[in-house]
């Protein structure tokens, strides 16, 4: 489903953020991407949705080489992905409902369909009571869940999450991980989640890919945070 083939990223300022990365992820696989700060986790995720392009190597999603995509095909790629950004990227002037609706509308979904999809996902992440709240009126954990709801609402094939439990207390973190775990199992959604969170990684026992200075130093199934 996802295949990295000798991928390197070198930013304009000369930083080698990724170095010769190769791995494959099967459909429905749940992967934790770990590594200290600056190790290249966000960069790796960004290459999947083409916010950053590899300076060497290729990435394949469902057999399609991302390097061969034309500018106008990028939206179609992103519509298949659900992305939870490290900084959430919720729109500050729109309330929770509108934040989800605008994603669905901007990819051309029908109004009635939108209503059903949003109610369902808000129920699922436990925000059904706050559709009218603006992002700043939500707590950190609620914003995090809102960001996850937005990533899931279009029913993507792949979920990409950049530190979805950063800044959250351990209990809330575990709640959010459970949400993702349920979706992963029930919808067979492929998930790649970058995290620093030892507790989360250790309790979930999923595949772990560890990065260090832009290189994969460990790739292990049913693994824990430390070797």
């Amino acid at each position, binding site marked *: 489903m996802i295949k990295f083939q000798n991928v390197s990223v070198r*930013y*304009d300022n000369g930083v080698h953020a990724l170095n010769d990365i190769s791995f494959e992820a099967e459909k429905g696989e749940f992967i934790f991407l770990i590594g200290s700060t600056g190790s290249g986790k966000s960069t790796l995720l960004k290459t999947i*949705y083409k*916010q*950053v392009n590899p300076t060497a190597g290729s990435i394949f999603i469902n057999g399609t080489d991302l390097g061969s995509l034309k500018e*106008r095909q990028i*939206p*179609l*790629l*992103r*519509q*298949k*992905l659900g*992305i939870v*950004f490290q900084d959430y*990227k919720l*729109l*500050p*002037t729109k309330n929770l409902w509108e934040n989800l609706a*605008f*994603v669905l*509308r*901007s*990819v*051309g*979904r*029908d*109004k009635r369909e939108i209503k059903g999809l949003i109610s369902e996902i808000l129920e699922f992440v436990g925000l059904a009571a706050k559709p009218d709240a603006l992002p700043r009126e939500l707590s950190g954990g609620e914003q995090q869940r809102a960001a996850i709801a*937005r990533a899931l609402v*279009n029913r993507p094939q792949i979920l990409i999450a950049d530190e979805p439990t950063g800044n959250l207390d351990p209990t809330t973190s575990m709640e959010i991980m459970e949400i993702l775990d349920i979706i992963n199992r029930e919808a067979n959604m492929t998930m790649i989640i970058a995290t620093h969170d030892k507790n989360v990684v250790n309790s979930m026992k999923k595949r772990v890919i560890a990065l260090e200075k832009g290189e994969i130093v460990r790739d292990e199934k049913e693994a824990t945070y430390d070797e």
Partner: protein
Amino acid sequence: MNKTLRLIDYSISEAIESIRRNGYAGLAVVSTTAFTLCILWSFVMVSVAAAGYTDRQVDRFEISVFMKVDSTLEDAEALANKIKALPGVGKVTLKQKEEEWENFKIKHSYLDAGGLPIDTLPYAMSVQPKSPEDTVSVAEAIRKLQGIDAVFERQEFYTKILAISKVIKWAGLIGAAVLFFVCAAIIGNAIKLSIYARRLEIQTMQLVGATWAFIRSPFIYEGMFFGACGAVIGAVVVILGNNLISSNIRTFLKMTELLQSPMPGKTVFWGMLLCGVAIGALGSLNAVNRFITRYASPGESVNE
């Protein structure tokens, strides 16, 4: 609803939202647009009037050709064919001698024409050049032909007026074209600000897979809306002004034959509306193409 309708529905509601948020800034754009469109349309009307005037003058550029008194009908027909073959010649009408003779007798009844034989009247023809500017050159060419007594053309005065009205026509059109782009730039600037205000939203939209059309069309609609509003206000002003002017100085204008009739209100309204919407679409399209990538490219963070 199919996808296109949903796109339009979405774009319009987003455009309304954006206009609502812009508030007084939008009002400023609309009034500037209305003002510019008023002047633009005045230019158009002056230009149309000048063109109409020119068209009405064309038959005044007739050239009258008189043949020698002893020429025969055959000579006349042969000459007519020769003239027809000259470059720049439009229509050649050979005058019927009998008819002319009757006219002559009526016109000059104080002369005792009864005693004069019909043959004292030469064959004559009127020649119309294809375009008024050619009058002199055509007349010169005819003068070089055989069997001609005299060639008259009423040129000089009308040429001057024509030249002036031509200048007015083109100056009006050029002025209107310049204002068209000025106005497009004004609306484009408003859209640029709108894009800047919504750059975060646009960036996020791009990251979640919104297509080209969904990102851009709300701004295009917004620009078209500004153009349309400005046009409607401008049209009301122009129509009122038109009525005021033409009721006051219509007699004067009639005299100078510059304006045979003022442009009808309906034409003004629809013309200006079309113009305003086109300007809005052009201005916003330009802004969208230039500024969405500049302000809201999600790839921006690569170079931050």
